[in-house]
């Protein structure tokens, strides 16, 4: 029995005194692709943010690779893609500089980038199809490309667990395809993936297990193709049957039945 990359036991999280996540159990094993579905406000983002230590919780426990979160130090084993619209900040930064921050977890505390850091940045940028954009400003990239930059940044530390908070929301189909290819490779290499999503699109065939949250509780935990219509309703703000059929490859609108 391998140690799960992430184990959440009986977890409750409150935001400003309001219980948002209630007594959730969840595990992601190495090489397992778990997707977290649910309507807006069902607690998906709150749950994953608590899992990576960004939010305190009221009761229960979170373990990363067998260590309680408070004692966990091997942050280079965790890649995180926050929910965000873009990668820009108040000062210009190049694609390579932003992806380079993903290497910090692998560096000594006060070290400057070494050649292996630069190599990792280059490799990951090529992996997401942006190898020729390394020295461009991130603001020159389209929304989907900026999202790919954030994924390259999360991968730069060679993680064993990847947590993605809505990485495909409003992202063009080409970038979704790239993401599907990258995540497929990772899972085959034994990386655990926890994906918060509204729409699965081209990622659907990769998913081993779906967990549906409803009102902060787990409403369903099992294979994707066994999701019933009512679970699917819970999984989506707009009713649509999650099912065997992956999203159509072309013409996937950012709004529509797949949202």
């Amino acid at each position, binding site marked *: 029995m391998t140690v799960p990359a992430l184990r959440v036991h009986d977890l409750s999280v409150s935001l400003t005194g309001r219980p948002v996540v209630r007594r959730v159990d969840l595990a992601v094993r190495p090489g397992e692709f778990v997707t977290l579905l649910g309507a807006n406000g069902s607690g998906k983002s709150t749950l994953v943010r608590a899992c990576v230590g*960004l939010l305190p919780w009221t009761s229960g426990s979170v373990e990363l690779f067998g260590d309680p979160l408070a004692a966990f130090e091997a*942050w280079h084993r965790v890649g995180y893609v926050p929910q965000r619209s873009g990668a820009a900040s108040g*000062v*210009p*930064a190049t694609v390579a500089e932003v992806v380079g921050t993903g290497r910090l977890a692998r560096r000594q505390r006060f070290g400057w980038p070494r050649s292996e850091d630069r190599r990792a940045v280059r490799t990951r940028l090529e992996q997401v199809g942006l190898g020729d954009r390394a020295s461009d*400003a991130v603001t*020159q990239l389209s929304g989907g490309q900026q999202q790919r930059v954030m994924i390259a940044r999360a991968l730069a530390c060679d993680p064993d667990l990847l947590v993605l908070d809505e990485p495909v929301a409003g992202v063009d189909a080409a970038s979704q395809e790239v993401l599907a290819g990258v995540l497929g490779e990772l899972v085959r290499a034994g990386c655990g993936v926890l994906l918060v999503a509204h729409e699965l699109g081209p990622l659907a065939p990769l998913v081993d297990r779906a967990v549906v949250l409803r009102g902060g509780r787990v409403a369903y935990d099992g294979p994707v193709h066994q999701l019933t219509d009512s679970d699917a309703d819970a999984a989506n703000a707009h009713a649509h049957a999650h099912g065997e059929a992956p999203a159509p490859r072309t013409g996937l609108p950012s709004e529509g039945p797949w949202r």
Partner: protein
Amino acid sequence: MALMLALLDYDFMRRALLAAFLTGLAAPSIGTYLVQRRLALLGDGIGHIALTGVALGLLTGRAPLITAVVVATAGAVAIELLRTYAGTSGDVALALLFYGGIAGGVLIVGIAGESAATLNAYLFGAITTVSGDDLRIVAGLSAVVLVLSVGLSPQLFAVCQDEEHARVSGVPTRTYGLVIAVLAAVTVTVSMRTVGLLLVSALMVVPVATAQQVTRSFRTTFALAMGLGVVASVAGVVTSFQVDTAPGPTIVMIALAGFVATAPVGAALAWWRRRRRPFDPDEGDEGPHELSEPHTHEHRPGCGHLAIGHGDHVDYVHDGHRHAPHDDHYDEH
């Protein structure tokens, strides 16, 4: 050159130029991080608080530079803690500290029986009155700011770029947030003698704003801002000596002139880059393809029409339409 050498004959000018050089280097270095965090006005707020520190120094007979460092640092830490833990009510709390700081300062200066002229020296700078002791403190503190802001640049950049991601990378973001706040407070006090507490934020922010008109990486923005800060500070001191104006405002006006001069360049660059920004491949791909009106021109690289990447092919902008080559005709995109 002859002028510079002549200026260096004066002791007070030597000290003034050295102080200007150091503050011109230190202020934009920490200012870059503040702008990146979208906290460009933090320096202003700390300047207000530092005034209370100056006043306490005048009242107790201690060096105002020292008391200002202590009070400004305490204020900066308070602001950072309020920002982190008080959330959205933070900016109101900031305003309270700002006004408390400046009102307290003016009040205590009055109690200490100091004149408005003394107050002015701190509000708008009095670089030609920098003493040897002042210069040693300025040099020491500038060195600390420079070493930390350059040495910790990978960590500070990550924290200012995306605080949550940095935290999940195991970076102690709260500690680094405090480091930035304390460095900003130290810089404000260091620059107090050069440009004054009310203008200090300009020296932290304006060179950064100028630099980013023409840069696209953090590293060059950081270096260029420091260079521009030095040029503005030193040129300001020299100019103020020549034409007999107040040094602090002269420095700031030169820095602003630099921004005004580069703004058109930046606007042109931004326009040029935006034109070439690729279209998201999905955009407008729904529905049947629409054929362009028949035209005999053959689009190719260098044909004179703007070429823009669009997914796996290139569109050419032609009379306000985007033409995509498709077999023997062009599609409208």
